[in-house]
């Protein structure tokens, strides 16, 4: 599954988009565990969110094929 990255996460991934192998019906929490194994610097963020199809997702939300998934580090607009 393609994962979009923004801000500091782009630096952590060294890319604005990465590919992650996910089992069917994986949850946001399971995605975060995989990402943190592959990119341990994610753990140094105070917190980060995952957005699915342009909406903030909860830990137990299930990912579906074709979803637009993005890692959202702490925002700092305004």
């Amino acid at each position, binding site marked *: 599954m393609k994962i979009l990255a923004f801000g500091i996460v782009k630096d952590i991934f060294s890319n604005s988009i990465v590919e992650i192998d996910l089992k069917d019906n994986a949850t946001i929490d399971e995605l975060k565990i995989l990402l943190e194994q592959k990119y341990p610097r994610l753990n140094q963020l105070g917190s980060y969110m995952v957005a699915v199809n342009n909406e903030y997702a909860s830990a137990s939300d299930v990912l579906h094929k074709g979803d637009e998934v993005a890692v959202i580090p702490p925002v700092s607009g*305004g």
Partner: protein
Amino acid sequence: MKIDIKISGEPLNIQSCIDWVMSPECGGINVFIGTVRNLTKGKKVIRLEFEAYESMAIGEMNKIAEDVLKKWPVQKILIHHRTGILQTGEVPVVIVVAAAHRDAAFDACRYTIDTLKQTVPIWKKEVFEDGETWVAAHP
């Protein structure tokens, strides 16, 4: 049209933002203008770079505007955010709220900038003489 949302790589035009909300029904307009400061914790800022997850940011800005229209008797609300490279003194954000009475305009405008800073996926990188840092990434 009660809501005007924009993310733009071009400089924001404050006067035309205000012109958009003006109407004979309106009695008070409150405007918030963010500007790029030349110092952060005493360190000189050379420039800023704003990056947006644009489709989601537009959605979150619209949610804030819809909430404002539900919470306060507001006639019009405009939220414009700039992206790309900004020099100190330039304007990353303009929020304009028009209402029949000023209390609603003040409260709604403040709620909008406070919420925008918490929920809208836009990131600011501060560039100093000796390096750069994504703001809020290391709380």
